[in-house]
């Protein structure tokens, strides 16, 4: 049997029922389009989160005092004081997998200049902080080692703080602002970074030498954290392990005892957020997949009705020489044409809808080629799967009864 002929036969049959064919197709179109646009939304948000995280410094490593705890409040005040400046010095000296390292202390408070004030956070760090957090100084300059040594009262401010304290376009450089009553001279302004993926304003901060913040502002002898950056994203785990070993030795922790600090990498955070968006993607795809399934059932339903309605036609075809498998293939091809055409339209519609979502709602969209191929393959298989049973029923008809069917 010539397959061209069978395709021709199937096309003619579909042509006779254009509207019904279209309605059947609609189920598949909606299914495929929703699978594609849902996956595009899921992938798009995952990518944008990853991009923002790597902007924050994807190879950043954070060391905080206190053991890692899940549930149960055991963080006593003293446990939060376990990191000392000496720890930073040892890490900076001995760790091989890190390129930059800074101690960190911070204080929330009110920054005041003249009649203007704003609540913000002051971070006490050294100059490595810029590289670790991917900040850069836009105007002015950053403080030096010498400033750190003498605990100089200088600071670098973020764009948001600059705008709040100097609303009339005054140049903040060289001005002295007060933070929790202590005067700081503004020596630089950071290049703006905008909001991060958690919605935090990354420009709402003041950076000062850690010695100044630790001694003059907080008057503490410990540090609140250490930030480092691994040589590369890939070796962040090695860096974490190395730092843990160094700190355990430094803190004289016996083997088997719990750490009194915890080390995390940005990479962990990134993959955690990634898995959240993955879950969202899977959920969206499931919902869309269900609509594809419903579309498939629609095909089955219509093919079923069609077989019953065309019983006489089937009987006639058989009596003039069509074999069972000709009839089977004819109906199967019809089902596949419906789902295939529906798939093509659905893919186009899905891409269009994704573009529309991006344009109208401004959501990040990313269409992965595999999602197009996948949904297309699934809908074709759906056609075969749901077309098979009705086609089988048609092929098994007895021509004698079928031809006289009323």
């Amino acid at each position, binding site marked *: *049997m*010539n397959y061209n*002929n069978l395709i*021709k*036969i199937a096309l*003619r049959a579909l042509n*006779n029922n254009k509207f019904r064919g279209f309605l059947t197709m609609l189920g598949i179109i909606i299914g495929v389009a929703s699978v594609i646009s849902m996956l595009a939304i899921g992938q798009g948000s995952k990518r944008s989160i990853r991009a923002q995280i790597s902007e924050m410094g994807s190879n950043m490593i954070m060391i905080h005092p206190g053991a890692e705890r899940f549930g149960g409040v055991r963080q006593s005040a003293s446990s939060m004081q376990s990191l000392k400046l000496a720890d930073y010095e040892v890490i900076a000296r001995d760790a091989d997998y890190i390129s930059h390292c800074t101690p960190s202390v911070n204080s929330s408070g009110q920054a005041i200049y003249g009649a203007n004030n704003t609540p913000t956070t002051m971070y006490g760090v050294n100059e490595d902080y810029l590289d670790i957090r991917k900040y850069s100084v836009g105007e002015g300059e950053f403080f030096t080692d010498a400033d750190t040594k003498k605990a100089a009262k200088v600071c670098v401010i973020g764009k948001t703080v600059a705008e709040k304290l100097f609303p009339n376009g005054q140049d903040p450089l060289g001005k002295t602002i007060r933070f929790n009553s202590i005067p700081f001279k503004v020596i630089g302004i950071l290049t703006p970074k905008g909001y991060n993926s958690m919605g935090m304003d990354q420009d709402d901060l003041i950076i000062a030498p850690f010695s100044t913040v630790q001694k003059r502002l907080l008057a503490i002898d410990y540090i609140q954290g250490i930030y480092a950056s691994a040589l590369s994203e890939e070796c962040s785990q090695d860096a974490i392990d190395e730092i843990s070993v160094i700190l355990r030795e430094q803190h004289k922790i016996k083997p088997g005892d719990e750490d009194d600090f915890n080390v995390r990498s940005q990479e962990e955070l990134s993959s955690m957020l990634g898995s959240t968006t993955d879950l969202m993607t899977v959920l969206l795809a499931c919902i869309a997949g269900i609509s594809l399934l419903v579309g498939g059932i629609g095909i089955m339903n219509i093919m079923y009705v069609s077989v019953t309605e065309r019983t*006489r*036609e089937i*009987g*006639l*075809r*058989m*009596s*003039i*020489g*069509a*074999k*069972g498998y*000709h009839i089977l293939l004819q109906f199967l091809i019809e089902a596949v044409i419906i789902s295939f055409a529906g798939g093509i339209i659905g893919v186009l519609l899905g891409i269009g809808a994704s573009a529309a979502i991006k344009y109208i709602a401004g959501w990040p969209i990313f269409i992965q080629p595999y999602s197009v191929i996948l949904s297309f393959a699934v809908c074709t298989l759906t056609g075969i799967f749901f077309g098979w049973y009705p086609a089988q029923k048609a092929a098994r008809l007895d*021509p*004698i009864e079928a*031809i006289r069917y009323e």
Partner: protein
Amino acid sequence: MAQSIIQIKNIRRDFIVGNETVHALRGVSFDIAPGEFVTIMGTSGSGKSTLLNILGCLDTPTSGEYYLDGVSVRQMGKNDRATLRNLKIGFVFQSYNLLPKTTAIENVELPLLYNPAVSAHERHERAIKALDQVGLHDRMHHRSNQMSGGQQQRVAIARALVNNPVIILADEATGNLDTRTSFEILTLFQSLHASGRTIIFVTHNPEIAQFSSRNITLRDGHITDDTVNHNIRSAAEVLATLPKEDE
């Protein structure tokens, strides 16, 4: 005499309905030679439909032999019988059985679509020729639902002719038509007969027997009568006597 087109020997066909066995055919035998126009008559329940199904290779006998054009059909499988139907038999049904919303030529081409040996071009040529033979050349592209009953039956006859079958099987082919159209169709059958076609016409209408060359009567699964008709009436003449309808 040339080899028989159809040769059936002591054919029986039993159906099992519930716990009972129904004997539809109880030993039927006859030969049909090329060029015969045979009517098979019988009331309903006489077994003529069963016989037609067997002759048309849609069904196989419970016992007995059936040779179509020298080939034994009894042991054939479903697919082989389908091929045989495709190549050797032309069916004409009471209710035409044209494909809905399909043009005349597409309907006529249909049997050839299932014959891989026929090219698209040849299919088209042969369909045109068949439509010529039934006088529907100018309605080739009319759809089946735009045609009258008589025209639809002509298309069906063209469809039966297109594969150049050894036998045409007509099942009450005039049953759905008014008197005048019936005679038109009968005239067509007679002209096909005159051109050498072998035709079997199954009917319950005794009148039609006068127009065929031979008549077989069935009753309760037996042949009760098998006579050759030497006085074939011309359907064309009868048609001429009928009052013309205003069109």
